[in-house]
């Protein structure tokens, strides 16, 4: 017997529906819905795109069209438990941001956009994070890391990879 496993949990659907009164149509829920799914799963697989589309009364292609524009929602596999964005725009680059990015990737043993084999950490280059007063900087999850040095970058990688849960 085939059972179809739903990707969107009742909790996710409830979170999405709670936002519905804010907008005059359901298409405007696309980005909030994708964020809710991504916050829970750390990616938005194609099956979730189809379910979001069904929920919002849209064609899957419409949701995928929007999603693919932002290059923000991974689709193949989840991001690491910590997703880090290292700024490489002008103000950070002037203060060593590119070297910090290289250093973090080297310390984690991955290329930019890669995820460590234990699923702990994904590192991505970012355009201006709007924290140029603390250059070079990085956003990891909800934490802004300010005035990074090689030492603090290494410490960050170490902490992110310390065992705090089961790898995804």
């Amino acid at each position, binding site marked *: 017997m085939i059972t179809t496993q739903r990707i969107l949990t009742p909790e996710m659907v409830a979170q999405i529906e709670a936002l519905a009164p804010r907008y005059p149509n359901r298409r405007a829920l696309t980005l909030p819905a994708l964020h809710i799914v991504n916050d829970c799963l750390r990616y938005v697989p194609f099956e979730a795109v189809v379910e979001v589309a069904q929920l919002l009364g849209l064609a899957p292609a419409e949701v995928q069209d929007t999603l693919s524009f*932002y290059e923000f929602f991974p689709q193949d596999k989840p991001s690491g438990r910590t997703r880090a964005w290292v700024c490489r725009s*002008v103000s950070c680059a002037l203060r060593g941001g590119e070297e910090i990015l290289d250093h973090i990737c080297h310390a984690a043993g991955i290329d930019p956009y890669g995820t460590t084999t234990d699923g702990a950490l994904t590192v991505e280059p970012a*355009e201006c994070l709007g924290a*140029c*007063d603390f250059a070079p900087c990085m956003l990891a999850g909800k934490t802004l890391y300010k005035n990074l040095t090689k030492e603090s970058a290494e410490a960050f990688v170490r902490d992110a990879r310390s065992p705090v849960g089961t790898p995804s």
Partner: protein
Amino acid sequence: MTTFQPVLLEAVGVAGSHTLASYRSRGGYAPLERMLKEKQPADVIELVKSSGLRGRGGAGFPTGLKWTFLPKDHPGPIYLCINADESEPGTFNNRILMEDDPHQVIEGIILSAYATRATTAYLYLRYEYPLCWDRLQGAIDEAYAAGLLGKNIQGSGFSLELYLHRGAAAYICGEETGLIESLEGKRAWPRIKPPFPAIEGLFRKPTVVNNIETMACVAQIARRGVEWFRSIGVPSDPNNPRDPGSYGPKLYCLSGHVERPGCYEAPLGITARQLIDGQGGGVWKGRKAKAVIPGGISMGLMTEAELDTPLDFAGPGKVGCLGLGTAAVVVIDETVSIVDFLHNSCRFFAHESCGQCTPCREGTAWSLRMLERIRAGKGRLKDLDLLAEIGNTMGMMPGSTICGLADGAAWPIKNAIKKFRGEFEDYIKRTNPSGWMVTDPVPALQIVGAH
């Protein structure tokens, strides 16, 4: 002149500054309550119009005038969108306002919604500002609980819902019609104008899009009055009837190679040199500046010799820059290769071009490929002419694109080639001694993906 006292930033560094109690203790929301009782929406529009406030998001369009473009006696709904997608490299003034004084922003939003008769406001916040999200949501919850948002605000009969909407890390969402498309759940492709948003914007209804700092200015104009606002800054040029002047305080973001990077409030018209040497403590490590970005990377470059340029709306244009932009001043010291700077700039725009208009999609990627090749020691002098040609032909100003992103990409290219051509030529001749003079077509090094 006495020392300038910060107004927009008065709460920065004060413990608990983001709370309603703190904002109330500084006199906050009293002007709003007075306006709701005593003034009609048209009076508030007139107030902002007569203040001379120009939008702080980058384009500098007069805010009150923008509001008057809304259709008269429209049955509604009218929408107010607050642009907090602050993504211009070097810019973080809105972040500071949202983190440290969110109620100042919210008071400005309520006043602006009242003036424009908007009953729903969406604050589009970039993803990269999680602390702003928490602070704003906390402040919005407080404002609802205090009857400052929601139905029948303070018994005035005026109602307003204010919602946060989270972006997803795309620079183009800061373009007002890109923002609108993104809010509607689509890819953030800017719209062809007209129709302008005031006529047909969000959900095809009349819409005003304003910046966070603009909202804070509206709150301060309501509190301190038009005369106070007009006493600060640079008056309009009497010889130019089309110059609306540069009135009021402005938040300048100072970053890069300065001793004290930070967000500083100063009267519009402070010179780049005053800002760098005064608030910024000078160029770091006792070095000299090679180049300075006057207002976000899109605005181009000033040379050291141009640093006495006043940073008002008209100033940077006088030295060949695009304008004041976001007033984000980035200092590049004398040790930096201008080739590396331009590579960084071109990479940013190639990544952030939305891909809708061919000249921008191709021009930004092509310029990056050339910079990659020049840095790999395979540059030719002809590349400089090609880069200049790209800079001159993509954008709204040459009329080849829908939005201004390409103009922003073009200005650093044009300014760098024009003002630092000698350095480019030396670099190319030094790194490609056998091929710098070649003019045959060459293959690019690698494919560059668009955003």
